[in-house]
């Protein structure tokens, strides 16, 4: 399966990508590998702005015709913004998972934690590419 794994992003082993936008702030979303596994996404249950999560905790869920999957927080921090466009058009996750289909913006509590994430090449081998 061909999968798009951009090298300018970091990845969590549970398939969320992380893009550092400015100091201490990141955007997160679902990897191309994960959205392909899910198939047509029908609903994304996002956290509320202000919610705080530990890395590895469940921050929401994504529903496709095939499965319901938990969304695992890739970093520890506070939710600053959620992608409200996903309400009603959850298919954005399939169409543009690294762009318009982003999930949330978070403030990272410990920037050192970003080093624990996987690089593009490590994530590629993690998913068997």
């Amino acid at each position, binding site marked *: 399966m061909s999968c798009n794994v951009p090298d300018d992003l970091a990845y969590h082993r549970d398939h969320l990508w992380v893009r550092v936008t400015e100091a201490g702030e990141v955007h997160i979303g679902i990897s191309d590998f994960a959205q392909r596994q899910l198939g047509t996404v029908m*609903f994304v*249950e996002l956290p509320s702005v202000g919610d705080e999560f530990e890395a590895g905790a469940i921050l929401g*869920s994504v*529903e496709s*015709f*095939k*499965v*319901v999957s938990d969304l695992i927080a890739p970093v520890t921090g506070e939710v600053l913004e959620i992608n409200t466009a996903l309400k009603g058009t959850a298919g954005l996750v399939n169409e543009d998972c690294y762009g318009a289909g982003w999930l949330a913006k978070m403030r990272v509590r410990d920037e050192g934690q970003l080093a624990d994430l996987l690089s593009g090449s490590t994530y590629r081998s993690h998913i068997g590419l």
Partner: protein
Amino acid sequence: MSEIVILGGGPAGYVAASHAAAHGARVTLVDPKPLGGTCLNQGCIPTKALVESCGLLEKLKRADAFGLQIDGQVAGDWMAMNRRAASIIAMLGQGIERLMQDRRVTCLRGYGSFIDDRTIRVGDEVLRPDRVLICTGSVPLTGQQLNVDHDVIGTSDDLLRWETLPASLMIVGSGVIACEFAFILSSLGVDVTLLASGSRLMSWADREVSAVMQREMRKRDIRVALNCRIQSLTHTAGGVSALAGGQIVCSAERALVAIGRRPNTAGLGLENAGVLTNGMGEIVVDDVLRTNVAGIYAAGDVNGRSGLAHAASAQAKLAIDHMLGRSFEPISDRAIPVAVFTSPEIAWVGRTEEEAVADGIAVATGKFDLRGLGRAHAIGEISGFAKVIVDRSSGELVGLHIIGPHAGEMVHEGALVIQRRGKAAELFNTVHAHPTMSEGILEAVEDALGQATHKPLSAARREAHVL
């Protein structure tokens, strides 16, 4: 011939009357209101009629997905829906009355009240039966601070009488009634906010069931506020405001107070008979529904043991059997199924995973997402799951939890196994028809016992469970 007076004609009282009269007792059934009780007249039945109207409406909104073309508008008509419910109530109520005539049960319209432990007054009549069964049910709980006025701030009884719907409604509560009405009213375009005092909805349901229901509410734009302990409701120019933690947490045009129900014992004269009650007013009964006073029994909501109509009926029959000296099977409260008509439906029987662990049972759990079933996709309702809780040492089925279409119909195979303390493998060894939603139960049991046929190997359930 035994003379029995039954106070209250709901699912406990009329069933008791039918059962007792069929077995030779002379029965007088006393109720000031039409027979059928809260269940038929203000509860289960009218709300299920509304749920069905709203379910059809929801489906019609997605008609194109089913390959249907609808020209013109599809919209709910609250009063027309209620007229349909009223006609169903009338028809079923007549059925109960005919049943009572068939059994030669004497029906007295009026409030029954104890004069002493052997004597009951109903209006001008004085009855001295051999046995009495109290089945006076329950009434909605209201707190003084909630300022229930029945028109703007009402209970479920009031809501069913409202002739119009508000643009926005806050629901105080998070139990069965609160959740069912949240879906009904949201379908009809009401902007609904649910204010739950606890950390999750329907707190005695399985935790994962609560989570799916909350997600389904979010899909329908029903707002849910958790850990929100309402101190008071106040009338405002725009409707109602709710105060919690010293702050206004919600404002809406009207409010539904659905914080529970309490036993209906007012005016019964229990003190004249010496019948004991507990803190909430529930009549204290033993395993065979006897009160502390010889010859006086109590069944259904009034004894606080369960808030379910079918549990009330089962208790009532058992009480009658005991009165008449007939043989009977004890009721296991664990084997009484619960059905909740939210969208999707919820049903369960037995223990939740947490209850089983708390009871010291080493559990294996199995779960299957209903969207793995062909029938779910054909119906066009794929949300939900079936989950089983199994005792790992004995293999006994200790719980079945379902959220999904037809859950209320599906739960009974679990009830049957749990009632007879059977093993989960009995479900596994029972071939299930295809394509049906019930295949989800089979898959969940397979998952608990090893490997569900239609579940990826990578998603196999952990065998042991530690909470």
